[in-house]
């Protein structure tokens, strides 16, 4: 029998970055809020404390802070005709688990998308003509502009204590920053990180070729910092255990370091852990949600939690899964192109060139998640899509983020993977390799989407979500273009040898090697209920008291890491709810 708990004003599903931001912003309005987190609670101490967290096997290899596929996973296929199989063991992407979510185990790279990315279809049509968009490419405008979001990017970056060098402040180009970025209202709250030898060498070579290197914007604090919530960050000590780990040093921007301790003090905010939301419950007329039903692990029972507002703040994949399970929005159908929920799943097209230098010791263990130098000379707004034959762009970057030996030691191609030559190779080359990577956009396509799997179920008996995704020629041409730009930089750096790894024609999606946890789309935002699942305020078109936060809203993937945009959209949505929705709950568009 399901238990019914007393009604709340707001129920938040998932307590990561967006859940913590929404909790704080709406708690400040005096609302009674309950957040439900399916994983465990996590604090810097004891969960991330030294030396226990410096354990590559437990966290870097066995994924101690990630979701267990046994508890939650999905199925994957590469096309409409393939039978999807479960993502049984983590590989390609690593959704987080527990309080803080992926916000504890990210690297901290915090970018703003380009102005053009928010209105990508319009930009392409106006600049190059609609005819260059491939027939099966389903890119859309976001329905919100960079200009509208700028104050919210600023707010997120100052809340999170981002370290960087501005390149454009109110239209004035700043020396040493990214000259191609959209204008910022002011500079970063903290100065940029220190750079390793590899990043300095890359920046020197790029500068010598007339390119414009700048420090990667970092959610790794470079000085003591206190944010608007009174939360304190301490300067990063470059421990070399950032991505996949919680920060032992109170330096990495995360819900723990930036929000949660302040949020826990709000008497009108509470949260429950080990409480997995099973579905959003809809009113009989299906015009609103009445609350959520969750599984209370401790009590071993289902609980109905009534609420006036339901905020889906879980990871992108899980928000979409809940919407599909709950009947929020019409499920997308790739054969007709109709329906919206699950539409436009996209990923990230990355590639890289590895350089080997006998004479340089890069000390790869002395590193942070976000140190590194980047160039944006081949960004989305810098490329003639008609001339180059693709739509998209990448930032290009060098910056070693760790020297953990199990996760891999780069060896010159041809070195055996075991035996005496391997053993001699790892000794010779550990610390003597660096890479230049391209971090690129991924367009959306008619047959790349999310729906419910017909066969496999989870521990609650719910259908798993099914991902249909593969690499497409447009994006492969984009990454090959980046290769043609990176290899000359690599050659100019005169390494002993170098080798490239970029997706080539015919590349198939491989779920095994880690690629990136930048899964986007499926709950995309827009201004037309026929082509988007949520409106420009991330409000469900079909149930006006349901909002879906996070990167599920991206109609295609940007060329940058998503967290900056996820944070800005959260503050944008919080403002819309505060100013327009609470006084008069209704569809905001």
């Amino acid at each position: 029998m399901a238990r019914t708990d007393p009604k709340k004003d707001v129920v938040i599903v998932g307590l990561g970055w967006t859940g913590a931001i929404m909790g704080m912003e709406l708690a400040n309005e005096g609302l009674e809020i309950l957040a439900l987190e399916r994983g465990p609670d996590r604090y810097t101490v004891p969960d991330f404390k030294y030396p226990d967290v410096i354990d590559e096997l437990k966290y870097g290899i066995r994924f101690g802070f990630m979701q267990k596929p046994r508890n939650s996973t999905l199925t994957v296929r590469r096309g409409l005709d393939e039978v999807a199989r479960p993502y049984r063991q983590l590989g390609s992407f690593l959704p987080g688990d527990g309080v803080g979510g992926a916000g504890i185990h990210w690297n901290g790279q915090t970018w703003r998308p380009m102005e053009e990315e928010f209105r990508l279809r319009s930009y392409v049509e106006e600049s190059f003509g609609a005819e260059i968009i491939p027939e099966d490419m389903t890119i859309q405008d976001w329905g919100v502009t960079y200009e509208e979001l700028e104050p919210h990017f600023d707010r997120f970056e100052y809340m999170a204590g981002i370290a960087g060098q501005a390149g454009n402040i109110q239209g004035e180009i700043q020396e040493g920053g990214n000259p191609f970025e959209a204008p910022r209202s002011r500079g970063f709250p903290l100065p940029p990180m220190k750079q390793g030898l590899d990043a300095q060498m890359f920046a020197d070579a790029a500068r010598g070729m007339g390119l414009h290197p700048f420090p990667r914007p970092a959610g790794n604090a470079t000085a003591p910092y206190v944010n608007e919530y009174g939360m304190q960050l301490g300067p990063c000590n470059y421990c070399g255990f950032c991505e996949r780990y919680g920060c032992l040093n109170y330096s990495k921007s995360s819900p723990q370091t930036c929000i949660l301790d302040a949020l826990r003090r709000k008497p009108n905010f509470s949260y429950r852990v080990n409480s997995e939301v099973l579905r959003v419950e809809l009113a009989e007329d299906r015009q609103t949600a009445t609350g959520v039903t969750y599984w209370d692990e401790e009590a071993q029972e289902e609980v109905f939690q009534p609420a006036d507002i339901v905020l889906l703040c879980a990871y992108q994949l899980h928000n979409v899964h809940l919407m599909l399970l709950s009947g929020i929005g019409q499920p997308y159908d790739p054969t007709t192109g109709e329906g919206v929920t699950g539409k436009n799943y996209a990923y990230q097209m990355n590639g890289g060139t590895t350089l080997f230098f006998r004479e340089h010791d890069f000390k790869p263990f002395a590193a942070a998640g976000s140190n590194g130098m980047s160039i944006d000379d081949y960004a989305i707004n810098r490329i003639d899509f008609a001339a180059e034959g693709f739509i998209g762009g990448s930032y290009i970057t060098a910056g070693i983020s760790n020297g953990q030996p199990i996760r891999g030691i780069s060896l010159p191609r041809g070195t055996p993977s075991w035996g005496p030559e391997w053993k001699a190779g790892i000794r010779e080359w550990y610390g003597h390799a660096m890479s230049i990577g391209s971090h690129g956009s991924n367009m959306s396509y008619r047959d790349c989407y999310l729906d419910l799997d017909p066969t496999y179920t989870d521990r609650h008996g719910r259908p798993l979500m099914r991902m249909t995704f593969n690499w497409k020629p447009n994006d492969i041409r984009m990454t090959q273009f980046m290769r043609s730009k990176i290899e000359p930089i690599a050659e100019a750096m005169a390494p002993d040898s170098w080798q490239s790894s970029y997706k080539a024609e015919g590349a198939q999606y491989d779920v095994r090697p880690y690629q990136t946890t930048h899964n986007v789309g499926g709950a995309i935002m827009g201004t037309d209920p026929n082509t988007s699942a949520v409106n420009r305020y991330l409000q469900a078109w079909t149930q006006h008291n349901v909002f879906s936060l996070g990167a599920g809203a991206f109609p295609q993937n940007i060329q940058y890491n998503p967290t900056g945009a996820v944070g800005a959209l959260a503050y944008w949505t919080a403002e819309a709810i505060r100013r327009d929705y609470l006084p008069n709950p209704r569809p905001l568009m």
Partner: protein
Amino acid sequence: MPLPDWKTTRRGFIGGGAAGAALGAMALRVEAQQAEPPSLTEYTPEFFGAEEWAFVMAACALLIPSDDSSPGAIEARVPVFIDLQMTGEFGAASDWYMEGPHDPSADPLLGYQSPLTPAEIYRQGIAAVNDWCSRSHDAVFADLPPETQLEVLTALDADEIELAPEIRDFFNLLLQNTKEGFFADPMYGGNHRMAGWLHVGFPGARASYLEWMDKPGVPYPLGPVAISGERG
């Protein structure tokens, strides 16, 4: 087996004066810190049977061989690491989604699709390879001369020894776990005396390098430390 001094062998760096003396003292402390565990020949595996243990020992010795300059998988006690992993959560696939239906013949790009746990793959994989060796060479793997063992591992790596689809990942699993055992914190039973970390120059759990960001070209002077506080 004595381990190489961190600085003198690893980087060919000649430390002088106080620094050199400090390093000497550090090397002595290593020996004083922890008693040697039982030798591998006296170790009683928790998971593997005698024939399986002999296989794992022989295979690890070839995957990361010992040589004059540095220890290999055996000195690093990698087989102990693998044995302990098999009895734990990893061996039982306790984090993985293991519900059927299973299609172990699926395109490998779709990832792990075997119905078997890693522990079961070791058990069946070792039996299958020993069976193949017995048919081809009249002896189980561990009893073959090292050069023949090398040929068998090379053939396994190249998928030239046919294994049932359920255990097709056996060699990759063995190799991955062997490397893990060479580089994981010593508390997991391998990387004994931090042999793997010393071999490549990884300082383990030191985890604080702010001042080293401003010293390109200057080698990091300290050897590794383990989570237990043991220093190498």
